[in-house]
């Protein structure tokens, strides 16, 4: 009973924050709403006995990623979105497509739930850091390595994207290269 009440409180908070994320025009309000969604989801992970994931959710999402997003919003000093008049008649079609997507999602979950399932043993807690670490470094070592390479690519890509290089600098670089070729 208590866990059901906690679930519905957290679920309602998450949905309210998600709607507020889409509704608000000011990107900073949207960012704060998104932090609310992340915290509600971390609470839901605790109710699912996945405490390690819950802590990581707070650390990585609410900590690192949202700090980066808020930092960029502050840095660019963004205005609110201007009201859009040009495509207003398409809102009805957009709402219809959203409802269709919701129905499709529920149909997929219904089809999944129809398949026979093996009930989990109550004492088998899959959320401990030890079971996750064991799976990560034995059975799923290759995906973990691929994720590591992907993070390295992201670091290099971000530095190259944001680096500011003036046109004369690029020309000077290419002149250096051609000089060396002549020598």
């Amino acid at each position: 009973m208590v866990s059901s009440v906690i679930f519905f409180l957290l679920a309602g908070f998450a949905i309210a924050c998600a709607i507020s994320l889409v509704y608000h025009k000011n990107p900073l309000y949207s960012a704060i709403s998104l932090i609310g969604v992340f915290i509600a989801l971390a609470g839901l992970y605790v109710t699912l006995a996945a405490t390690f994931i819950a802590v990581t959710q707070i650390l990585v999402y609410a900590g690192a990623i949202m700090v980066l997003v808020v930092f960029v919003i502050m840095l660019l000093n963004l205005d609110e979105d201007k009201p859009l008049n040009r495509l207003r008649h398409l809102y009805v079609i957009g709402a219809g497509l959203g409802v269709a997507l919701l129905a499709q999602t529920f149909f997929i979950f219904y089809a999944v739930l129809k398949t026979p399932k093996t009930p989990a043993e109550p004492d088998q807690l899959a959320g401990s850091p030890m079971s996750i670490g064991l799976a990560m470094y034995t059975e799923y070592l290759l995906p973990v390595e691929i994720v590591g390479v992907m993070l390295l690519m992201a670091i290099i890509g971000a530095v190259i994207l944001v680096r500011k290089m003036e046109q004369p600098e690029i020309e000077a670089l290419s002149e250096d290269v051609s000089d060396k070729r002549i020598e």
Partner: protein
Amino acid sequence: MQPSLESYLALSGILFTIGAVGVIYKRNAIGVFMCIELMLNAVNLTFVSFSRYYGDATGQLFVFMVMSVAAAEAAVGLGIIIAFFRNRISVDVDDASILKF
């Protein structure tokens, strides 16, 4: 009494749909980015709830993969937004309609 698997999946579906509608509805590039993060989190909730109800840690392991992809996406995506803002003094996705400068 533990809430059933169905209620977690319903919440996940609702959050995913709100995120997808937001991606279509928002015109601010950072708003679109945040809605994509919301969709990723809805999928994470599905992973964790199935992992709990089948008693298998693999689902929680893949939540880690999704989080790594989200972190890489944050770094590269915000880099693209800043580079775009330098060229156009705007982050409106309508202004990004040409593929060269």
